[in-house]
């Protein structure tokens, strides 16, 4: 009987090939696991964990009610006035820059200048005609006021803006 005809002659070669294949598969899986995030594909072709990360981003604006917790009088006046639809934090600043975990962490910025008023009330062609708007300097002069940085506030209370 010749060597070529021995039934187990090539077994070790097949075994080596299978071992190499298994090693390649393990290497592939290890490599894949290193590069593909663990939650990838949980909901679709993206990293599923990111959905929760997006949800967990901090909410910086607390809303008018959060302002009213400490400044109820101002909020009450504001809610009855013509600026009731203007949210506190639009003119002031986000709650997060003022309060953290119930403690004051910074002064609330108030930009008390005519620019703040004119964001909304400067007369512009593109503004709806029904919205109250002025040419500031002629308006102040016509009303007998003094043209200054805070000219608007001489006559108007921004929390309830009718002429004083």
């Amino acid at each position, binding site marked *: 009987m010749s060597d070529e005809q021995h039934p187990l002659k090539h077994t070790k070669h097949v075994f080596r090939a299978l071992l190499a294949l298994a090693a390649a598969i393990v290497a592939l899986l290890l490599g894949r696991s290193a590069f593909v995030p*663990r939650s990838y*594909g*949980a909901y679709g072709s993206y990293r599923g964990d990111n959905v*929760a990360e997006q*949800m*967990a981003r901090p*909410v910086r*604006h607390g809303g008018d009610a959060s302002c009213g917790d400490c400044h109820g009088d101002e909020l009450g006046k504001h809610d009855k006035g013509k600026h009731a639809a203007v949210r506190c934090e639009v003119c002031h600043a986000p709650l997060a820059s003022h309060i953290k975990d119930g403690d004051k962490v910074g002064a609330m910025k108030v930009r008390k200048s005519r620019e703040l008023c004119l964001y909304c009330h*400067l007369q512009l062609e593109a503004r709806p005609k029904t919205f109250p708007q002025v040419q500031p300097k002629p308006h102040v002069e016509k009303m007998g006021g003094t043209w200054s940085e805070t000219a608007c506030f001489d006559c108007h209370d921004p929390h309830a803006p009718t002429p004083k």
Partner: protein
Amino acid sequence: MSKDPVCPGTPLAPTGGSNRRDFLREALSLGSAAVVALILPKELAAAATPNYDWDKHRWVYIIDTTKCIGCGSCVRACKQENDVPDDMYRTWVERYEVEINGDTFVDSPKGALESFEPATPSQSVAKAFFVPKICNHCTNTPCTQVCPVGASYQTNDGVILVDDKHCIGCGYCVQACPYGSRFISPRTHTAEKCTWCYHRITKGLLPMCVQSCPVGARIFGDRKNPDDPVNQILATERLAVLQPELLTKPNAFYRGLSMEVR
């Protein structure tokens, strides 16, 4: 940030998934256990917003160009809520001035962050209006389709998000968006965009641009909630979307949209 991966509503493991997991564990316990631990997705557990089920919502946004006064409150609020980098905008307001002969002038200085100055006076302006812009959160999204790494995606409740830990900053999505809603953040060098304040809407709050609008020009609601007023508006009013010819199916709808607006 939650350390555990999170499931917003739907259970991650499909029914019977544990059997497969058990089988795999047994099969591979012969020596490849380390590999298994790495390749099997870890079960998603606690939620950042536990009561939020994203399958029960489908968000939609309506913009009323007839009401917008161009004050820029939305732009400032968005900046502060989302810490948007300087000179970059997730929402902005454009001003259109159309002359009688059809010539159209569009501007948006600093995205309307500081509102607008009077435009160059022209006797022949026939119509002028403001148009707030945001990500349209399209149903057919050109942006997510071109992402080569799966960093941008659509949530089950219809919001287009970017995973800034996975994004490679190639900018394909920035170019693919026909509405100019994306940019590469100069801080992270990854794509950034409007999320409809996903961190707020999943807590029952409004997107900050909607909440900050003093004239109600921005409306946000849930198509899957029959009591939500947006459904009445969508059903009964004459609305338009930007660039409908692109078939992106935006989920931001406009009232009073003029044909000059792109």
